[in-house]
């Protein structure tokens, strides 16, 4: 699978699509395959602060609970409401399903994350 080049990636298998100082964050196809069927996504409310490297939520498959780590610091602007009733979108369309929109404190920090080629190299 070719990873989209319009975004950055973290080593925790998240993708980050930045526009000015607002980033959409989701998980990669590799991550959703590892997880299996996602049944529950637990995200903080709009207004919550996130800190780079710290856990900000959990994503649960049938068998297991995994933490979501913030790829950058900032404030949650919006949470994807569709995930409440349709957590399976994360499996079927991982690169089109954002989980949170974040106002990023330091947009330059996003630029220093992995690009598509570097992320793919991680997976081999």
């Amino acid at each position: 699978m070719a990873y989209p080049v319009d975004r950055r990636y973290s080593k925790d298998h998240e993708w980050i699509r930045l526009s000015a100082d607002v980033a959409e964050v989701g998980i990669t196809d590799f991550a959703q395959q590892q997880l299996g069927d996602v049944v529950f996504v637990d995200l903080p409310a709009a207004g919550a602060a996130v800190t780079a490297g710290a856990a900000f939520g959990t994503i649960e498959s049938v068998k297991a609970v995994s933490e979501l780590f913030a790829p950058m610091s900032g404030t949650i602007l919006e949470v994807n409401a569709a995930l409440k009733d349709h957590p399976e979108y994360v499996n079927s369309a991982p690169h089109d399903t954002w989980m949170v929109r974040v106002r990023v404190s330091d947009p330059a920090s996003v630029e220093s994350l992995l690009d598509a080629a570097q992320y793919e190299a991680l997976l081999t």
Partner: protein
Amino acid sequence: MTEAVTALRTTPLHARHRASGARMTPFAGWDMPVEYTGITQEHMAVRTAAGVFDVSHMGQIEVAGKAALAAVQRISCNDASRLELGRAQYSGLLSPEGTFLDDLVVYRLGPSHFMLVVNAANVAADYAWIAEQAAAVGDVAVVDSSSRYALIAIQGPAALDTLQPLTGAHLGGVPYYGFTYGEVANARALISRTGYTGEDGFEIFVPPNTADKVWQALLQSGADQGVIPCGLGARDTLRLEAGMRLHGQDIDATTTPLEAGLGWIVGWKKPSFIGSEALAAQKQAGTTRHLVGFELTDRGIARHGHAIVHNGAPVGLVTSGTQTPFLKKAVGMAYVPRELSAVGTALEIDIRGRTTPGVVTPLPFYKRPAS
């Protein structure tokens, strides 16, 4: 001192699972398939069509000889004297304290010949225990015959229609928890109408070198009905939805049948058996805790090990929990104090630091529609 790495054991279907792209996992010392196409899809297939499971890792222990019935009666808590030939029963292998060394299904193969099907994790320990206890009863042979059997389960409303074309045995004549002998895809088989999913279905015991052709034949026969291979992941969500206990999680060497809501497997009327005195005493005194089913009433999923909280204090533990694919609810089983075990009692579950409300519900969560 470094521990030697022991290679995982494999069933006769191991190569088939790998070739099918199954995600594998170690389980009870075996390299087993967890899922093929996904736990949710496999779970739904069993509820709406049928699924095929490799459960060859389970153990078969045979007890035969003049004192076979007496030996089985001693070590197994259910009343085996009620078993006619061709019948099986769910039971417990109890300690002298009345707690579960294992749960099992007892098959009456002959007047003095029984087969005990036990959990994979406990085969060696069960065999040693049964052999020791049986020797004290009388003239009886106890054999671990697990290596003689591969075991394939087909479970779901389409199970009978899928299996019938492959065998001359008249499956419609086999009652629930009955079994018969026959051939499946030309393999010599014991076919029992048992399972661990809450659906109609069959468990097929065949010689190991015939397992692959039986597996292929089942999938081919059921292909246009949507019959697919299923792994241990779906096996667990299915049995939990159906309210079935898992030894090592919901029942273990610290819990009795009375506490686990399994009093119906105790043969109170038969001669004394290992654990019977302890159970009688507990029945007299009353149990202090009870295994209940519950569902969450707010967002979240309860998992094994989460604390049950009441009035701010931890009072019990979740033994099994998941979001079940068919009912689409977060359900679980937990031990709670007897006073909190009535259906409708409000509970709280501590899910990673967040207290989430739930309610005690009847077990099972799912019952298959009457046919």
